[in-house]
C-alpha cells in the first residue's frame, strides 16, 4: 500500500519542494511589499512634489494637491498660507532616442512658464543629456510667455520672446523638448479656459 500511495501523487509528489517554495516565497514577498510600499510611494511623490518650490516660486511641496483639469493630470500649487500660486503640469513625448518626461511650472492664469524640470530622459549622454542642465537649457524656459508656442533659436534669443537657445549638437533634443512643452501647455490652457468658463 505504501508504494501505491507514494506513486499516486507522482506528478505533484515529486514537485512538493517547488510548491512549498513557491507558496513560501510568494507570501514572504507580499510581506516585503507591505513593509516597503509606503516608503516607495513617498519616494515617488517626493520626486514630483519635491520640485514644486523650484518650478513655481513660493509653492510648497506639502500643501499642493494633485487634481484633474479637463482630463489632464495636473498639480495645483498652493503656497504655505494656502493661496493658489500656479500649476505644475507633467508632460511627456518622444525625444531623440526615447521618451522624455517633463514637469512644466505655470503661473496662476497659465500665461507665463515659471520653470521646467526633466524627470526622465535617455538622450545621448554628453550631448542630448544637457537638456537637464538647471542653469543652462532649463533656465531659458523661465519667464517665457505661455500663449505663444516656443521656437528653437540658434543665437542668443531676446529674453521672454518665446525663443529658446538650442544646445549645440543636440538640436533634435532641444526641438523635442520645446514641442512637448508647447503641446502640453496648449492643451492645458484650453482645459483651463474651458473650466474657468464653468466655475
Amino acid at each position, binding site marked *: 500500500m505504501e508504494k501505491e500511495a507514494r506513486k499516486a501523487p507522482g506528478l505533484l509528489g515529486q514537485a512538493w*519542494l517547488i510548491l512549498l*517554495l513557491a507558496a513560501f*516565497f510568494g507570501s514572504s*514577498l507580499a510581506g516585503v511589499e507591505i513593509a516597503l510600499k509606503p516608503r516607495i510611494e513617498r519616494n515617488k511623490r517626493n*520626486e514630483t512634489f519635491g520640485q514644486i518650490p523650484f518650478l513655481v516660486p513660493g509653492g510648497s511641496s506639502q500643501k499642493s494637491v494633485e487634481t484633474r483639469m479637463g482630463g489632464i493630470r495636473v498639480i495645483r500649487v498652493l503656497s504655505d498660507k494656502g493661496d493658489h500660486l500656479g500649476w505644475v503640469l507633467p508632460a511627456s513625448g518622444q525625444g531623440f532616442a526615447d521618451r522624455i518626461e517633463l514637469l512644466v511650472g505655470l503661473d496662476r492664469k497659465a500665461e507665463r512658464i515659471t520653470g521646467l524640470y526633466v524627470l526622465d530622459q535617455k538622450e545621448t*549622454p*554628453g550631448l542630448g543629456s544637457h537638456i537637464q542642465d538647471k542653469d543652462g537649457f532649463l533656465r531659458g524656459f523661465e519667464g517665457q510667455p505661455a500663449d505663444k508656442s516656443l521656437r528653437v533659436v540658434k543665437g542668443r534669443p531676446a529674453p521672454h520672446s518665446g525663443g529658446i537657445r538650442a544646445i549645440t549638437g543636440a538640436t533634435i533634443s532641444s526641438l523635442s523638448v520645446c514641442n512637448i512643452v508647447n503641446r502640453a501647455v496648449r492643451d492645458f490652457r484650453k482645459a483651463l479656459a474651458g473650466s474657468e468658463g464653468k466655475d
Partner: protein
Amino acid sequence: MVDSGPTALERFINGILPENPTYRQLLGMCPTLAVTNGLKPALTMAGATAFVLICANFITSLIRNALKPHLRILVFTLTIATFVTIADRFLQAFMPAMSKVLGPYVPLIIVNCIIIARCEVCASKQPVGTALADALGCSLGFALGLASIASVREILGTGCLLGARVLPEAWPNWGIMVLPPGAFLTLGLLLGLVEWAGAARKKAGGNQG
C-alpha cells in the same frame, strides 16, 4: 562529486582572482556591460548582486539534500528571483536615484549566469560554510571586475570619477565610452590585457598563475 571538497578559504580566495567571474570565467556579461558607464551604479549593482548571491547560496546549500535533479534549475531560479525582488524593492525604497539609473538591470540579476553557476557548481554540493565563502569570494571578484571596467569608462568618458575631476579640463570627453559600443570595446581590451598579463606571468615564473 568532489571527494575531499575544497575548503571554505580556498573557495573564497579562488573566487576573487584565480577564478574571477568576469575576467576568467567570462560570466555575468550582461550587467558588466550595461551598468559600468559609471562607478557608482557599478558598485551598487555589485552590492545588490552580492546580497542576492550570498542569500541564494545560503538557501540552496540548506535545502541541497531535498533537491531533485530535474527540478534543480527551477528551484534555483525561484530562490534567486525572490531575493532579487527584495533587493529591487530595497533599492527603490532607500536609494531611489540609483534604482532609476540601474533601471531594468536590477531584475536582470535573476538571469545573471554567475549566481546560477555558483548555485549549481558549489552551493548544491557543499555545506553552508563553504557555500557562503564561495559566494563572498565570487561577489568580491565580480565587484572587482565591474569596478575596473566602470572606472576606465567613466574616466575616459567624462574625465572625472565619482564627481572628482581626474583628467584635466581640456580632456575631450570620449562620449563613446559612456555609450553602448564603449562597453564592448573596453571589456574586450581589458580581457585582452588580463589574458596577456596572465600569459606573461606564466612564461616568466613557471605556472602557478
